[in-house]
């Protein structure tokens, strides 16, 4: 029970962070991606803040053999840069640049009943399922 509560809190904080930084609003994200327009560098500060905090947390991970509740750390170990990785990232980037939603903000904005997110989220799920049907 405590584990599920901590996971719930993590999801909640993640959403709050996206909201406070306004990454849930497509104009804010598109303003960052619009490097040749009226550039809004805010997203770089969101990434920077998150990366610094996470990097600090990884220092604790190094000092402890296992996580507080989980059986082991599940940290990806692959180092191969594959065509799928690059192709997938490129397809994701095109979709991200079309509207300004990536998965996290899409979920949060849909929960707030923001209209474009209500189209985006079901399509996001269908996109995930199409990949599963094709590749599994």
């Amino acid at each position, binding site marked *: 029970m405590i584990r599920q509560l*901590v*996971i*719930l*809190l*993590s999801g*909640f*904080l*993640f*959403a709050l*962070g996206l*909201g406070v*930084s*306004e990454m*849930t609003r*497509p*104009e804010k994200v*598109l303003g960052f*991606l*619009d490097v040749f*327009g*009226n550039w809004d*560098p*805010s997203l*770089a500060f969101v990434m*920077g*803040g*998150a990366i*610094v*905090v*996470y*990097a600090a947390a*990884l220092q604790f991970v190094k000092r402890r053999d296992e*996580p507080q509740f989980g*059986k082991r750390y599940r*940290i*990806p170990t692959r180092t191969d*840069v594959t065509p799928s*990785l690059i192709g*997938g*990232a*490129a397809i*994701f*980037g*095109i*979709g*991200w640049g*079309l509207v*300004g939603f990536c*998965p996290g903000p899409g*979920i*949060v*904005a849909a929960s707030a*009943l*923001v209209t474009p*997110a209500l*189209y985006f989220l079901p*399509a*996001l799920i269908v996109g*995930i*399922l199409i990949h599963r049907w094709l590749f599994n």
Partner: protein
Amino acid sequence: MMEFIPIAATTGGLTEFTPIAATIGGVLIGLAAAIMMLSEGRIAGISGILSGALKNEETDPPRWQATFLGGMVLGGIVLAATQGLFDRDFVMTQLEIAPWLAIAAGLLVGFGTRLGNGCTSGHGVCGIPRLSIRSITATLVFMGAAAATVYVTNHIFAFGGLS
């Protein structure tokens, strides 16, 4: 359709640079991801979590992905409820985004993040601090592809959200 739109007219003044709010939000996101790693040993990658929630798999703890997403939904509801309390909106958009565009974007983002094993959170927030070559590569590629898409859709063809 090839009419060139002056850059300043397309995006002028839609958003302002908000470094403090952005940093606070980023710290919250980093904390959330840190909590997942330190308590469960798991990467807080949203596309992976959503994909996992759509599977019928035994996980430890059971259905943890659904719990995490539940927390995100709660967050979205709280953010929506704060509308009008602050001098800015946290979730509402002023852009008029055509439904077909949002649907196309969702399909591409869903398919692409699965093919590329991650999105802004998994590769960006959680991968870059690990100095993962895969995540750094993926982040550069999706940022570049997204910036190119914004340029093409808003400055050349003018059907993107900013135009």
